[in-house]
């Protein structure tokens, strides 16, 4: 029914997770596994690229909450970038911009990581 996929990219500044499709209660586990894998590999500077993410449900949002504490304790951060308007709206309604760096482009997130700024 709903399709979702995550692919990894590693840049000098961060580990980039490109999400595409629909992130809901059924596909949330895929993202969990992906983030867990990044953390196991010692990568704590994560950029979530939502350019191809069409939909996110509250269970999908919960995935970020599940990991953010551990990531920040390890000196890293999750930065969420390039969200489509309707997905941004879901983030915004929940108040996620209060908790996460939600940025327009990957480059801005990378620049922030390079500058050593982990939390905004």
């Amino acid at each position, binding site marked *: 029914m709903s399709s979702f996929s995550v692919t990894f990219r590693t840049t000098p500044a961060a580990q980039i997770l490109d999400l595409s499709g629909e992130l809901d*209660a059924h596909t949330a*586990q895929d993202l*969990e*596994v992906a983030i*867990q*894998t990044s953390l*196991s590999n010692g990568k704590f500077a994560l950029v979530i690229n939502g350019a191809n993410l069409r*939909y996110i*449900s*509250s*269970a999908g*949002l*919960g*995935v970020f*909450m*599940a*990991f953010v*504490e551990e990531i920040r304790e390890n000196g890293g951060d999750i930065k969420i970038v390039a969200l489509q308007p309707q997905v941004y709206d879901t983030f915004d*309604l*929940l*108040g996620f911009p*209060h*908790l996460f760096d939600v940025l327009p482009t990957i480059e801005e997130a990378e620049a922030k990581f390079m500058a050593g700024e982990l939390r905004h």
Partner: protein
Amino acid sequence: MGFRSLSPRTQQIVLGLSAGVLFACTVVHHIHLEVWGGWNVRWREVLTELAVAATFGLVYQLLSDHFQQRKSGPIRALWSLSLVMLGIVFLSALFGLHYEKGMWFFTHKIPDRTIPGVLVICGMAFLQGTGGAFLLVQLRELVLFKRTAVTVRNWYMLLWSLAGTFGAVVLVKLIPIPYVVEFAIVFAGATIIINVFRLSWVAYLPFRQKLIGLVVSLIMLLVLFAAFSEAVPMRKWSFIIWEADPFVAQYSFALNLTLTLTLILGILYSVTTLLSLIFHLPTSGDFQRKTDDLAAMRALTQMVGQVFDAQHLPNLVLESVRQFVGEEQMAWLALSDARTGTLRPQVAAMTGISESQLTQWVDSEAFYAELQARREPLILNHAVRDHRIHTPGYEIGSLAMMPLVTRNEVIGALFVGKTLADGFDEDDAKSLGAFADQVALAIDNARLFEERIEKERLGRELAIAREVQKRLLPDKLPEIPGASLFASYEFAHEVGGDYFDFVQADVNRYSFIIGDVSGKGTSAAFYMAALKGTYHALARSDADPQTLLLKANEALSVQKEKNIFITAIAGLLDTSTETLTMIRAGHSPAIHIDLHGHVRHLREGGLGLGLTNSKILAKTFVPITLPLRPGDVFVLYTDGVIESRNAMGASYGYERLTEALKKCRQEDARGIHAALLADLNRFTGDLRYFDDLTLIVLKWHGKSVRTHM
């Protein structure tokens, strides 16, 4: 009706009777000729020879039919052959050795030309002819073991060449053509040589049977040799066997020659059998192991069908592995844990090696990575030299690693180690690879089975959760003077975590809340219950929405899974001041529409509950206070409404909800509610709701008007 359509029993009787009658004819011929000195003409002699040929042809057919029906193994065939031939040699010896002096139990020689003499000659000939037929029938079973078109053809060539030799002898009696018989003999010899190398049954015998076969074929060789030297007395031996067994030769010269050839076939076959068995003895271990491999594989395949216990499967697998490689070796099985979602396999079972040895000696991570990439078995025949093996001595000489791949995913790996270097050859790699495929299948099956069980368990849990949820919802809404109110809760096929409640705080003030837990099932129901507890404790005493939400946030933070949060809107309706106060905590914004159709989405507000501590949360809260005017309608809902989809996959969305609301805003709360739900149902069609769906409509009619809800 043909002969073959008769019952086997009748066929046997017919064949036996025909053979008997034909044989009797030949006996009569001999008595008439020898004893009574009857007239002898060439055509009569030829006719008799043809009768002899037919007799033993029929005997061969009779025996062949008989043994076709009850096949025995190759060793049994060798045995019965040896025993029968031994009997014939013994009987021949009783009479034959003393032929010239007479039979040993007669004191004097029986003259040839008497009736008893002729009867003995014919009887012995019959015995030996039948023995030859028996030899052919038994050898056929051996030669045609694992038959192919070519071996069958060669066998029939042999039979025809024997018959041809017989025919050649008869032919030269009619027309003396030189070298016809010699040619026939050479041809028969060639077909004999072709057939004596058909020994495919030898390789399939286990070691013990080969030993037995060796002894039996040796006995057979001796017996046949005795029969041969009896049939062809050495002192009369010459290159071409014109003067042969005195009995049979007197009975029929052609039969004597054919029998001699048959005996030569038997002797040569015994020799090749003997040699082949000797040469195959050392390899029988390998053949045995192949058979054991197959047995282990079959056992595992059965296990795939039977064992659905993922906990015990790894140990059972290693049990089977031991059948492959022997007890003294080591093996371990690593599996990724599907439940925790870690991709790194964990050792699930081991044998012949301890866990601490394993961690010290083997760099499992590196091997997993390689297997993950290769997806093919990896054999280290000099494990000590590999940089990923750190044994203190030569504990692991060779190591075979097989990735377990199912549904295109590597779910683990099977490791088999031997203390010897070069412990695995290509055959081992192949069978272990095939074995690993079966293991992967077995584990996948067991996991699917467990998942299924888990699902059923969850199904029951959901049923309980739904029951709890129903009880958490208000069974009655308050009657608010000047307002109408209607609320509904639609259950989805999975339990969501929607919650709403109304409490009359005091005479003029009515508190309400709507919430949605970000999760489903029992945990969602649990947080709903927690929210309801907090809400009811506070709503009556301190109905201030902000305090209420902050307290709920604190209550939730105590024991909450990190990825769970609750979105909510808390509000307070004051009928005396005609105001509505609301705070939105991450929830889908309430919609306000006034009498004139002006719509406002009340987006002001902050974070959901359970995302952060109350101090930060409080900063994000923006209370909305609205003066109430008659005709004002407020719609509160959970995201199940907005996210409901139609068959095309499109979401219902805010705009459709707003448009529908504009059209029905004149109705009272119940009417508006019904119209909104109807519009939603028109949109989704037959599709069931994916998420729980809560819809609350509150309409302010004005202070003076009393309306029933």
